[in-house]
Structures are given as structure tokens and as C-alpha cells.
């Protein structure tokens, strides 16, 4: 069955080709929808079959590699030169990711049939989505870094295409470019910021090839196992890889693109910017766990960046008013948690949170999509309210998602988040400070999520008469319900020992992370009393956050008002996302453009080089202007000189 792995990857690509080439001629939206979601559905089915087969195998025999053909190589036959094969690797980690990508992807495809109904670019949208799934599967199933990079860039491209899907629409990015930006500015920003990350990835690959002589995961990781902790090369490799991860997974300092990426259609935000693509960085770090295990310093950096991102993004989320932007910052924040987990060497905890996050964040985005759909493209939560009457299904599912992300027992988010917090506290790579940041972040998360829920669904209507909200069609609500169910029960795949579970996901993934755990001498811990205390504490803080939001936004709106007036500076700092965009614009973008135009182009190219050349040319012509006077035009004068020349030459010959 595992030999079918390439089909998982290529089916969506076939879908892309069919829709891309003939989509404009297919008139029926239904057919397009069926093709688009069908290929992903079949991929999911194959992945499921492979998964089932793998469950029946020995834990250490669950890795399968399918080689296809030679891709990039010098073809000189020299052993030391580069040789990269297109090959797919199915193991515990990649099959889990594949299931998430195809499963959640399939649901979102189905959802999109309803959401994109009537859009002129319907076929284009599905073609892009299929291409995205193809690229994402390349990323997760790749057996070497280069193929992973193909997927890595491919998802970036699809993200670019889909963010700018409505390329003729204006999009308010706020701040420095308010009012002038289009969806495409957001798309381009996403691509370019990602490229900065990719730069790190490329350099990391070069260094990996230089160090290990191969880009295959197997060879690299086997080589890495022989190295000792603190290896210099491993440090640089992991640091550069992490730069790549910060780009793709929107971590400090490259997180600025993700909120803008909300310019895309909502299913895109759900699929790419919540459930799958942005988690690629997490997946990659987890995949390279053994390399990271060799570099404790990098792990430290990962943990710090993750924790910082978690809290910073959550704080921004507190004051945003755009429903999707709140979710976007929430995503950034949750990704921060995942990196925090990875940074404290709790790789399976990170992947666990990635999984549950995929469920509830996709759910929240799709729910917000239903809201936006109902509100005729209104996204400002200040102009909503009381929607639960009109959108009962959406409301219920959305609420489940919100509880899940807030981390309330026994929803999915609770188990995964607490796993991370506990590891941050207990792991020798973690610390109390990190745990504290995580807990505060969790409280903020609960607060802003319920602010969002309350402002959107509770209270009174704050919109005009002309808006008539209506519940979404079946194609949209069914995926919502399924995802809500998953958000509810998804956590049970990782119930920790302290709850008398056996943490299935950790056991499933254990063989993948075994080398790293061995290297780091991680020991499986027993049940601690502290764990219960901490759990109760974080649960309490989350509950407090929810209560606070409920209190402020249903009973006492004046509190919010007075806080805003009291701390205007802080408020505007948060509202403007700490002015990061502005700082980047002033310090990097602006000066580069200025330098290029004024100094390099008009200064050096035109003035210096061309100036020198044209100067030489005019020197010649000025001299010539003077010398040409010799040319009288009278041939006889020339003849006289000619004769004189002969005379002198002869005289010289005679006298010599």
C-alpha cells in the first residue's frame, strides 16, 4: 500500500492540471467542485489506507520510501557531487501530516464549494487549492530536503496566488499603507517575507550538503546521530533552518505577513494560513529533531522566539476588530506555542498541538467565513452582534472552536496546550518563565477569543437594515460540524498519563523522535503532583479570561472604553501591531529602494559608468573637432604631404 504514496501527491496535481487547463471551459460549478474536492478526498482515502496498514506494522518498520526519478544532480557520476532523487517517505510523522493536510483540506474544499459560489474565478480557486495540496504533500512526504523545499516554495506560491486571488480588490493593511494597498500587496509581502525565510532554508541545505554530503533525510539524520551535542555545523544548520521556519510559520521577526494574508478568501485562510502551510515550519523542525538536538543553543532560540511570539501576537489580538485578523494573530500565537514545545525538545507535544490546532483553527476560520458570507463581506466585529439568532449552527460550532482554543477541559486544545505548558515547565530546556509566559498567553487567548465570540454572536445587532444575515448552505455547515466534532474529541489522541491515558500520539511518533530523545537523554517521566497544580492554574486563568471577556463585553462595555482612554499609547501600540511594519518599512524597505534608485541606478550606473563612457566618447570627439581642421578637403595638399613623406623616408633610408 505504501507504494501508492506518490498517488497521494500526484492526484491533487492532476486535479490542478485538469482545472487549470480546462477549468474555464467547465461551466458547471458542481463539476468543478467535485473534481477539486474529489482528488483530495481520494488522496485522503489512500493516506488513510496507508495509515491503517502502518498501524499493523512494527513501530520501527513503519518507514517506507518510494523513489521515482533523479531530479537535480550534476550527472557527472562523481560520488561526492550532488544527487537528488524525487522520492517520497512515509513514516509516522509524515502520514500524520498527510492525514491532516488531505483531511482538513478535503473539508475545506467542500466548504469552498458553498463559499465561492458565484465567484467568477471559481475554477481558478479550486485549481490553486489543488496545487496547494500538491505542494503541501510534497513538503510533508518528501524524503529529502530539496524536495521538501520544492513543496516549501510551492505552498508559498499558492499562498501568493490565493491571497491575491481577488487581485483587483483593495485591501486595508492598515498603518503605513492605509487605503492604498491591494490584496496583491499582501500577497507579495507574504511571498517576499517567506523568501527571506527561504534564504535561510537554502543556506541550511547548502551547509547540510556540505556537512553530510547528501540531502536525503536518512543519510543526514544517520550522520547527525554520530555527531556530538554542540556541533558547530549543526548549530548553524539548525539556526538557518529555523530562519526558514520563522518565515513560513510567521514567527518573530517575520510574522508580519500572516495578518495581511487575510486578504485572501476565507477558506484559504483556514487551509493555508491556519491548518497546514503555516505549520510547515513546525513540521520541518520536528522532522529535523535530531539536528536540533545537537544544537541546544538553537533549541533555546526556538523556545524563546516561540514564547515571545505567543505572547506578542496574543496581545495584538486583544484589540483588533477585524474578525479574520484576530484569528490570524491567534494563529501566530498558537504557532508560537508549537515552537515553544519544539524548543523545549517536546517534539511530539508540538506536533500534537499542530494537529488539534489544525482542527479548531480551521473550524474558527471557516466559521468566520460563514459569518462574513452572511454579512456580505463585512469583517469588522464592531459592526456585528447578535448573530447567534441567524446563524445557529455556525454559532455552536464556533463556540466549540473558541472553547477548544481557550483550552477548556476536555476539548482538544486543553490536552495539547497543557502538554506544552507542562513540558515548558518540567523539561530541562524549559523554565518557569517560559511556562509563565505560556500561561499568560493562554489567558489572553481565552480573553480575545471570547471577546470575538461575544461581539460577533451575542448582544444586539450593530449593522444596517440592508443586511439580512442567513445561515450558510449545507456544503459549508457540514464541514463545520465535522471539524467541531474533531475539536471536541481530537484531544483524546494525546491524553497524558496523568489523566490515565496513554498518550497515543506520543507513542505513535516516538520512533521518529527517538534519535533526538536519545541524544538529549530525555527520560519518560512519571506523574507529578505539580502537573495537576499547574494544570488547574492554567485552567483557572483560561476561565478567568473567558469570564473577563464576558464581563467586559456583555455587562460593562465602559470598562473597555475607559481602559482604552486611559492607556491610549498602549492601545495604539497594540492596534498598530507594535509598529513592526512601519519599522521594517522605514529601516529596510525604504532605504533599499532609495539606495537602489538614487545611488546604484541613477548614481552609479547612469552617472559613473555611462558618464565615464560618454565622457571618453566626447573627449574623442572634441579632439577630433580640433584635428579635423587638418583635413582641408583639397586633395593636392594631401599629395604634397605624401610626397614629403616619401622624401623623408628615402632620406632616412639613404642616410641610415
Amino acid at each position: 500500500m505504501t507504494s501508492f504514496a506518490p498517488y497521494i501527491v500526484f492526484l491533487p496535481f492532476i486535479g490542478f492540471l485538469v482545472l487549470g487547463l480546462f477549468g474555464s471551459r467547465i461551466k458547471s460549478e458542481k463539476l468543478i467542485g467535485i473534481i477539486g474536492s474529489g482528488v483530495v478526498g481520494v488522496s485522503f482515502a489512500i493516506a488513510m489506507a496507508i495509515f491503517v496498514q502502518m498501524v499493523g506494522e512494527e513501530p520501527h518498520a513503519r518507514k517506507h520510501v518510494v523513489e521515482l526519478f533523479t531530479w537535480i544532480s550534476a550527472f557527472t557520476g562523481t560520488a561526492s557531487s550532488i544527487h537528488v532523487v524525487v522520492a517520497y517517505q512515509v513514516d509516522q510523522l509524515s502520514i500524520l501530516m498527510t492525514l491532516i493536510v488531505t483531511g482538513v483540506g478535503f473539508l475545506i474544499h467542500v466548504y469552498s464549494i458553498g463559499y465561492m459560489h458565484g465567484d467568477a474565478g471559481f475554477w481558478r480557486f479550486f485549481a490553486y487549492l489543488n496545487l496547494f495540496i500538491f505542494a503541501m504533500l510534497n513538503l510533508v512526504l518528501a524524503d529529502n530536503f530539496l524536495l521538501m523545499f520544492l513543496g516549501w516554495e510551492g505552498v508559498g506560491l499558492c499562498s501568493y496566488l490565493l491571497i491575491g486571488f481577488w487581485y483587483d480588490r483593495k485591501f486595508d493593511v492598515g498603518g503605513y499603507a492605509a487605503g492604498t494597498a491591494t490584496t496583491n500587496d499582501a500577497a507579495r509581502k507574504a511571498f517576499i517575507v517567506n523568501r527571506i525565510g527561504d534564504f535561510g532554508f537554502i543556506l541550511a541545505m547548502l551547509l547540510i550538503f556540505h556537512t553530510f554530503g547528501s540531502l536525503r533525510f536518512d543519510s543526514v539524520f544517520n550522520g547527525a546521530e554520530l555527531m556530538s551535542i554542540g556541533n558547530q555545523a549543526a548549530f548553524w544548520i539548525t539556526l538557518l533552518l529555523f530562519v526558514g521556519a520563522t518565515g513560513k510559520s510567521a514567527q518573530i521577526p517575520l510574522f508580519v505577513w500572516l495578518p495581511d494574508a487575510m486578504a485572501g478568501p476565507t477558506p484559504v485562510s483556514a487551509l493555508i494560513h491556519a491548518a497546514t502551510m503555516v505549520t510547515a515550519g513546525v513540521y520541518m523542525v520536528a522532522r529535523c529533531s535530531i539536528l536540533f538536538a545537537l544544537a541546544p543553543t538553537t533549541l533555546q532560540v526556538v523556545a524563546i522566539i516561540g514564547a515571545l511570539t505567543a505572547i506578542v501576537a496574543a496581545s495584538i489580538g486583544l484589540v483588533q476588530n477585524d474578525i479574520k485578523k484576530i484569528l490570524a494573530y491567534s494563529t501566530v500565537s498558537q504557532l508560537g506555542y508549537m515552537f515553544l514545545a519544539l524548543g523545549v525538545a517536546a517534539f511530539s507535544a508540538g506536533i500534537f498541538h499542530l494537529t488539534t490546532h489544525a482542527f479548531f483553527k480551521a473550524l474558527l476560520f471557516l466559521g468566520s467565513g460563514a459569518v462574513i458570507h452572511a454579512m456580505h463581506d463585512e469583517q469588522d466585529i464592531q459592526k456585528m452582534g447578535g448573530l447567534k439568532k441567524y446563524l445557529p449552527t455556525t454559532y455552536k460550532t464556533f463556540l466549540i472552536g473558541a472553547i477548544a482554543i481557550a483550552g477548556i477541559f476536555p476539548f482538544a486544545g486543553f490536552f495539547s496546550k497543557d502538554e506544552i505548558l507542562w513540558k515548558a515547565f518540567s523539561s530541562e530546556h524549559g523554565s518557569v518563565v517560559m511556562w509563565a509566559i505560556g500561561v499568560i498567553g493562554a489567558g489572553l487567548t481565552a480573553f480575545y477569543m471570547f471577546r470575538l465570540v461575544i461581539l460577533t454572536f451575542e448582544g444586539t445587532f450593530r449593522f444596517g437594515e440592508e443586511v439580512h444575515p442567513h445561515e450558510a448552505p449545507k456544503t459549508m455547515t457540514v464541514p463545520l460540524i465535522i471539524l467541531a466534532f474533531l475539536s471536541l474529541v481530537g484531544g483524546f489522541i494525546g491524553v497524558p498519563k496523568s489523566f490515565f491515558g496513554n498518550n497515543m500520539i506520543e507513542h505513535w511518533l516516538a520512533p521518529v523522535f527517538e534519535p533526538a530523545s536519545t541524544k538529549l537523554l530525555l527520560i519518560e517521566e512519571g506523574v507529578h503532583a505539580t502537573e495537576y497544580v499547574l494544570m488547574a492554574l492554567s485552567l483557572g486563568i483560561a476561565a478567568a479570561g473567558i469570564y473577563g471577556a464576558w464581563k467586559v463585553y456583555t455587562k460593562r462595555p465602559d470598562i473597555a472604553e475607559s481602559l482604552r482612554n486611559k492607556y491610549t499609547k498602549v492601545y495604539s501600540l497594540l492596534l498598530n501591531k507594535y509598529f513592526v511594519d512601519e519599522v521594517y518599512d522605514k529601516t529596510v524597505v525604504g532605504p533599499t529602494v532609495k539606495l537602489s534608485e538614487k545611488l546604484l541606478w541613477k548614481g552609479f550606473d547612469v552617472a559613473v559608468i555611462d558618464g565615464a563612457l560618454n565622457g571618453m566618447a566626447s573627449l574623442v570627439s572634441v579632439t577630433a573637432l580640433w584635428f579635423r581642421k587638418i583635413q582641408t578637403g583639397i586633395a593636392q595638399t594631401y599629395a604634397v604631404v605624401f610626397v614629403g613623406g616619401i622624401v623623408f623616408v628615402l632620406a632616412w633610408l639613404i642616410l641610415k
Partner: protein
Amino acid sequence: MNFDDYALSATIFAPLLGVLILLFTPQGNARAIKIIGFVFSVFVFVLSLYLFFRFDSENPSFQFQQYTVWISGLNIGYYVGIDGMALLLIVLTAFLTPLALLGTWNSVEHRLKEYTMMVLLLELGMVGVFAALDLFLFYVFWEAMLIPMYFIIGIWGGQDRVYAAVKFFLYTLFGSLLMLIAILGLGFFASTLQDGKFTTNLTTLYAVAQHLPLNLQLWMFSAFALSFAIKVPLFPLHTWLPDAHVQAPTAGSVILAGVLLKMGTYGFLRFCLPLFPEASLRLIPVLSVLAVIGIIYGALVAMVQTDIKKLVAYSSVSHLGFVVLGIFSMTEEGIQGAIIQMVNHGLSTGALFLLVGMIYDRTHTRAISDFGGVAKLMPVYAVFFLIISLSSIGLPGLNGFVGEFLVLVGAFKSAFLGSYAYAAFAGVGVILSAVYMLWMYQRVMLGPVREGSLYGGHKLSDISAREITALGVIVVFVVWIGVYPGTFLKKSAWTAKTVVTLMENVQRGFQPRYAERALHEDK
């Protein structure tokens, strides 16, 4: 008589047949002229395909060799033959020429006959340059090819065509004259050796050049390198390029960017490195630094251009920087990457110029600020533009990435460069390419349709089937090289291997030989 013996010559001179037939075609019959030009350029392509399929990738020597005495007293011969690199470039030339004609079918009306003849003559010169194995013959083709290009820019170009044409001509001529001197010097050096005779036969000179003293090597290398660096163009000798590109007609730009620029890098690999290995080793830092500066500089300047063609022209400076860096990494990956990158750049930049030409034909403007929302009116065109832009950006899965990555790998691991910084800085170019290409794409293609612009009234028609064919064929190869580059890389494997082996041997022998010389000086 075996056709293989003459296949290469047939490929070189096939365009001449077209020129002769055009000579007797009445000036007024535009259709016939276009068809004849196209058919003959396709014929050349078919011949080049014959070469491609008959070429033996396992054979390290020059193939399809043909030798005829030309000037017997000086041992100058009509000596042609190709290795994998030359093969790829010949196929590229023969591939791009018909597409350039096809893509600009209706662009030229004025003096169409002469124009078509010039394009065919240009093709002759270009194929000749890649096939020549005699330095004198090479020089003749090299110069001969300048003339049609000069006329193509000077007669069928834009506003400042004469300035651009003269600039192009003088720049290149200046370099090539120094090269001629070096060629003659090399020939005379051959005659000073024991039993030596004056010769310009490349294979003989490969052996002869081993005896060159280092200082002579350095001088001759510089003369050759200057000529090639101007052609590449290597920073800071690049300023002819934007002018020439902007002023040249579309087909001229396509061929100029697609093929002519490759002659510089081809020259480095064919002549500079194998003839003057020691000098090459010594000058690696200079050329690689210039290449890296070119990569970043070209990209930065491209970013702020207001004219689409100029933007593409500066992007060429950036891309060719990669090629030069790859060559001077002197690793198998680097050189293979450089060779495939030459082909890639030919395809993607050629296609970009075709695309720009298509929109220029419709709107008669190339200023980025005049556009906006073109994708709405020309969706198919926008798709092609996007694919080609992405190929130029170096998206994995498309051709640009293969070359760039191999070059980066080569530069990174190269013991000759000796520093990671080259690869790291070159990598910055990868970021910047995305910046300028996507920014341009956005401003031209996306956003709302501009009101009051030349095409505001929805008069802009999408590209025709003919144009789609021209672009579609290129896209096929863009994807092919991106996904399965082995077809092409295998052909040029021996070229890379030969050069690298030579360089490594010289490097190994470098120290003692140098010490020996120092000893002599002491006496």
C-alpha cells in the same frame, strides 16, 4: 559519405540557404518572407535536434568534428565540433530563433525582408560561434554576428536606437579586439615552441598553452576575459545591455538576451579556463566578487526600473552573475549549474522579452506605470507571464531553480572560492529576484484596470493562438528542465568534468611550479 561529418556545418550554414532564397523573394510579399524565414529557422532547429539525439553523452571529446584547411600557411582551419555545452547552446539558439520570429510575426513591417535576412544571418553567426574549434574561425563568427545585431538594433529599434546600437557595437568591439591580439599572441607563442608552428587550432593550443608562463597567461586571460565579461555582461561592464535591450526590437531582445549573452559565459568555459588555468585560478576572487556584485546590484537596480524591458535587462545582469559564479566555483555542480542556467536564462528571459513585446505591440508603451489590471483583460497572457516570472524567480519545479541551486551548491562547497560568503550573498539575489519580478508583475498585471490608460476601453485583446504556441513551447521546456533536468544535464556532464579535472590538477601542481619559478628569480 556520412552525414554526421557534415551535420554540424549543415546546421551552421542552413540559415544561409534561407537568406539566399529571401534574396530572390519580392520585397512586397510579406507573408512569403515571414514563412520562408520561419521555415528555415525551424529547419535549423530540426538539424540541431539531429545533433542533439546523435550526440553521445558518454564521449568526452568533441563530436561532429570537421576539419578543412583554410589558410594553410598559418595553420588556420575551418575546424568545427561540439561538446555538450556547445550542443545545448546550439539547440537553444536554434530553438529561440524561430520562436522569436513567430512571437513577433506582425511587429516588423518596415524593411521586413532585410530584417528576416538579418535574423537568419545572426543565427548563422551564433551557431558558428558555439561550433568553432579554431580560434580564428571563432573570432570571425564572433565578429560576424555583431553586424546583423548592430543593424537589427540600429534599424528596427526604438527611439534612441542609433545610440544604443553604437554603444553595443563599440563595447563589444573593444573587448574583441583585445581578444584578437591575445589569439594572435597565442598563435605566435605556439610557433616559438620546439617544432612549433603558428596555429589557431584550439585542440593544439590546449596543449600548447600549458607551457605559457604565468605572466603571459595573466595578460592573455585578461584580454579574453574582458571580451567575454563585456558580453556576459559582468558588472561593471554591463551598461550597454539595458540600452541595447530597450531599443532593440522584440526579436532582437529575445536573441540578444537568449543567446548573445551566453557567448560570454561560453567563452569563459571554452577558452579562458582551459587555456589559462593558472591565471584563472589566480583571478577567481576578482571574477567571483564581480559576479556576486552583479547578482545583487542587478537585482537592486532592476527593482527600481520604470521600464519593463529595462527591468528584465537588469535582471539578466543578476542572472548571468550566477552563471559566472558557477563557472568560477570550478566544481562540477557549479559548472553544470552554470551551463543549465545559461539555457534557463535563455528560455525565461527570452520568453519575458517576447511577453513584453506582445504587450508593447498592443499598447505601444513599456512604462510600468502605464499598466495595471492587464490580467483582467488578458488572462491567458497573465498566466504565461506568471509562469515565466516564477521561472525567473527560481521557483523549485521550474527551470530557474535547477541552475541556481546547482550554482549555489557549487559555490558553497568550492574549495577554489574558499568562502561561504559567495554563496550566501548570491542567495540574497534569490530574495531580491522575487521582489522585483513580483512587484513588476503586480503593477502591470494585477490591480484594477487603469482608467484613462491606452487600453482602458477594453480594447486589449488576449494573445492569439500563434503567440500562445510560441510561449507554450517555451513553457514546456521551462517545466521539463525544472522537473527532469537530467535530459540536458547529462549532455554537458563531460564538459564540466573536463574543466574541473583540469583545474584540480593544475591546483595540485600549482605550488611546486610556483616555487620553482621563485627559485629562478633568486638566481
